[in-house]
Structures are given as structure tokens and as C-alpha cells.
């Protein structure tokens, strides 16, 4: 059975359709990146999955059960959400004590998770004085309190400095290596590309694609970058052969889905001077942008 099942999920806020008939599954033990531009419906989907938002139609289930019907939810699922606040006057340790008490978890878990995220030294300080990075760590500590097999993280890298992002990446990999299922959302593919096995990409509340990272990489295009004083002429020549090319700067041309042989022969036949030519691949970010923008945002 899938660890996470989103089935025909639709959520409307008044006239705004935040999530539109979305379906996907996350298998046990996989790390899945949940991607989409800002406003694509990622947060709404995750909050519905966690029972905080009631869906308009469809369902979201954890191990086949709606979150609200799980017996001991935080022993199943740990979540880090963006707007999940901490009382500014409460210390990190006391925040965790409150959660542990309500969930009936032993207080030894509090010290264990503080140690796990590296907050032991600052555990007695009020959260009001915490940096964004420390808050994210405390959020992760809270999520791990029940030692859950499934983790749901909403934009965990948002607002972190490069060191924080690096730490987070290592931490997520460690959680994945322990065999946990992780669903991590982001609006930047590069943030999670090194960590995830699969991606689920959504735009405007709809599923764009669900694929392995390898399949997504295979979608990147072969590009040829040419530096020539006759960029316009070469562009027209290539177009005649059915090769799309676009100018990039004053004297540069980037041909899509082409090889250096095709471009070189075309240039030589027309006597076009070439200063420089090299093969490139478009990066994942381009594929991501292409996928999410082609879906378009309904006007």
C-alpha cells in the first residue's frame, strides 16, 4: 500500500481553486520532491493531507487512512509546515514537552530530538529569539518527536542560509537512509534534486508530471551554443533545416535539439565565420520551468 495517497483532491477557497482534481501516490520508503511554482497548491495539498484543511472533493490518505482517523497521528507522520508557529515566550525544550505530553510520548524523546537537530545548547532559550534556521530545526525536531515513518515537509529550505540548506540536505538524506518516506515540497527544483528519488510536479493546482529524477533528467535538451558575427543569418539557415535557435546576447546563438555536426555543416556551407561552438545540455531547472509554465495559470 502507498504511504501517501492523494485521490482526486480538489480544494476551493471561495472562487479560487487551489487544488484541482489532483491525484498521486508516494510509495513507502521513497523520497519524493513535491514541486511547483508559488501558488501552485502545494501547501494546500499538504495541509489537506494533514487534516488541517477539509477538501472540497476527493481525499488524501496516510497508509490508506485519513489523517484525522489515525490513532496516534504524530507516531505515523511528522510534519514541518511553514505557518506552524511557536509561542515566542516558550523555550524550545518546553515547546517539545507540550507536544510530547499531548501525544503521550516519553520526555526522553524531547532530549533525543533536540540532540538530533543540534539544538541541545539552545534548548532553554525562548523561541522568540530564534533565527529562522533555528526555528526550522525546532520544526524538524517536533516532526521527529514521535519517530514517524513518514515525514511531510513544506518548503523546509525557505529562508535558510547556504549553510542551513547544506545541513538540511544532509539531514534529509540521513532520514531517507533510515528507510523513512519523505514528501518534501519546494518551488526550487535544485534545492531537492540531490535528495529525492522522484518528483511530483504541480502547477495551478493540477498534476503536471510524476516521474523519477532520472526520467526528468532525460528530458533535458541537447543544445549547441555558437558565437558568430552572423547570428541572424545562421539562425535563418538553421530554421530552414528545422532547427530552432534563439539569440543569446549580441553575437551568440543557442540551437535547441541539435548537434555540433549539423550546426557546423550548415555554417560551413554558407561560409559563416564561427568563433566558438560547444555542445551543452539544458538544466533541470529549464525543464521544470518549461513544464510548469506550459500548463499555464488560468486567467
Amino acid at each position: 500500500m502507498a504511504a501517501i495517497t492523494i485521490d482526486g483532491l480538489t480544494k476551493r477557497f471561495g472562487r479560487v481553486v487551489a487544488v484541482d482534481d489532483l491525484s498521486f501516490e508516494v510509495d513507502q520508503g521513497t523520497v519524493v520532491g513535491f514541486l511547483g511554482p508559488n501558488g501552485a497548491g502545494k501547501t494546500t495539498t499538504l495541509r489537506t493531507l494533514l487534516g488541517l484543511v477539509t477538501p472540497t472533493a476527493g481525499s488524501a490518505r496516510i497508509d490508506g487512512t485519513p489523517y484525522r482517523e489515525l490513532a496516534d497521528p504524530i507516531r505515523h507522520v511528522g510534519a514541518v509546515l511553514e505557518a506552524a508557529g511557536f509561542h515566542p515566550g516558550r523555550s524550545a525544550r518546553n515547546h517539545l514537552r507540550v507536544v510530547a505530553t499531548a501525544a503521550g510520548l516519553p520526555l526522553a524523546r524531547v532530549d533525543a530530538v533536540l540532540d538530533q537537530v543540534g539544538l541541545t545548547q539552545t534548548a532553554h532559550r525562548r523561541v522568540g529569539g530564534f533565527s529562522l534556521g533555528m526555528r526550522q530545526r525546532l520544526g524538524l525536531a517536533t516532526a521527529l518527536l514521535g519517530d514517524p515513518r513518514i515525514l511531510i515537509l513544506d518548503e523546509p529550505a525557505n529562508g535558510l542560509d547556504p549553510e542551513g540548506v547544506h545541513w538540511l540536505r544532509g539531514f534529509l538524506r540521513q532520514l531517507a537512509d533510515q528507510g523513512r518516506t519523505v514528501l518534501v515540497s519546494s518551488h526550487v527544483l535544485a534545492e531537492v534534486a540531490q535528495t529525492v528519488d522522484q518528483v511530483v510536479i504541480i502547477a495551478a493546482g493540477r498534476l503536471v508530471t510524476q516521474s523519477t529524477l532520472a526520467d526528468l533528467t532525460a528530458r533535458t535538451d541537447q543544445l549547441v551554443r555558437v558565437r558568430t558575427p552572423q547570428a541572424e543569418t545562421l539562425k535563418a539557415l538553421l530554421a530552414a533545416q528545422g532547427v530552432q535557435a534563439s539569440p543569446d546576447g549580441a553575437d551568440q546563438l543557442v540551437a535547441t535539439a541539435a548537434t555540433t555536426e549539423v550546426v557546423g555543416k550548415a555554417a560551413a556551407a554558407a561560409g559563416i565565420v564561427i568563433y566558438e561552438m560547444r555542445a551543452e545540455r539544458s538544466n533541470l531547472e529549464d525543464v521544470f520551468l518549461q513544464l510548469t509554465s506550459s500548463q499555464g495559470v488560468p486567467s
Partner: protein
Amino acid sequence: MIRLIRAEFTKLATTRLLYSMGATMAAFAVLTVVAGIAYAGREGNPALSADSLPMLVGLPVTLLSGAALLLGILGMTGEFRHQTVTQTFLVTPNRGRVVTAKLVAYPLAAIALALSILAFTAALATGWLAAKGITLSLLDARLGHVLLGAVLAAGLCGLVGVGVGALVRNQVAALVGVAVWVLLVEGLLMSLLNAPSLGKWLPSAAAAALTNPGGAQLSRLAGTLLLASYGLALALAGTRLVVRRDIT
């Protein structure tokens, strides 16, 4: 449910709210004792005697009921204000259980606060009058009467506070709403109705009946039942209509 109630007590014990409220109430208690002693024997007030303790201890009771109401409102709406409600509902997705735990924990906390302040007031008054050569009698039936009224008022006002907070989850709106209700609306209703037989059913009158029953007021038992009904009705309506909404 026990662990949810314990979690509510942990929440209360780990922020400054209850402590600063206790300190403020203690300061007010000092003022009321000073005023109570200063005005004793003047302007129709009975002179100080060995039987003055119930009068002095009873002085901060109304204020403590207000503090209990405030505590309940702040406890419930604070979850929404600081967005801690997200984590609370992740641990306990059944939101009715969360409200129920607060309906138990906050009245108990309010009673504990009230009893501490009343004990402090009694100690202060006893010490002061002892210095004036008046030995107060602690074995006074009226003292039990004052304490019972204070405990009921604090507990039930705490209950009503949680109910108000469940119905109006915006903290500022809840506080302003209650202030307007108590200071303005009830007064207007009283004068419009112009009939104590109807006015006694209002929440403030029900609370007053707990500390000062009889006369035009309801009996203490009727006041208790009425105020508890108000609190539970607010909490039920709040849970059904407001607390169940999407947490975004």
C-alpha cells in the same frame, strides 16, 4: 483526555501569562486591602473588627472573575494568534477534544489562581490588622461562603472565556467584544428591559449571583447552572462553527 489536559497545564506553566496575571492580581489585592481598611468605619462601612476577614477577602473576588475570563479567552485565542494551533491539531486532529481539554484545564487554573490570591489577601489582611491589635477570626462561616463564591465564579468565568475564544478566534476581536458586552451591552439591556426578573438571566448577573446570591439575583445553584450553560453553549457553537474551519 488526561494527557491533553496535562498538556494544557504544561502550556500554561511554560509561558509568562499565568505568572504575570498572578503578579498583577496580587498587586490589585494589596490595593483593595489598603482601600478596604482605609474606608472601614467611614461612609457607612462597618468598622474593623475581629469579623472583618470575610469582607476583606471578598474584595478582589470580582476582579479575579474578570481575570479568569481573560485567562480563558487568551488561552483559547492565543493558539490561533501564535499559530500554535497547527501543531496542537496535528497531535490531536479531533478538535472537539482540544476544546474540551481547555474547558477542563482553564477553569481549574483560574480556581488555583483565585485561591492563591485570596490566600495572599487573607494573609495580608490578617498581618496588617494584627499590627493594629485586631485579631481576625479565621473560623467564620461567612469566609467559607466568600471562598465558595470565588471558586465558582473563577471556574465558571474561565469556562466562559474558553467558550468565547472558541467562538471568536481572533484575540483582539474576542477581548474587545467581551469588554463591549460587559461594559455596554449588558447595561443597555438592563435598562431597556427595566425588569430585574429578566436582567438576572444575563451572564454578568449570573456571575454576580455566585458571589452574592439571593435578593433580586438568582440562587447560587441557578447562577452556577446558568453560567456553565452559557460557557458550554459558546464552546459548542465555537467548536461547530469556528474551530472546525480550515487552518491555513
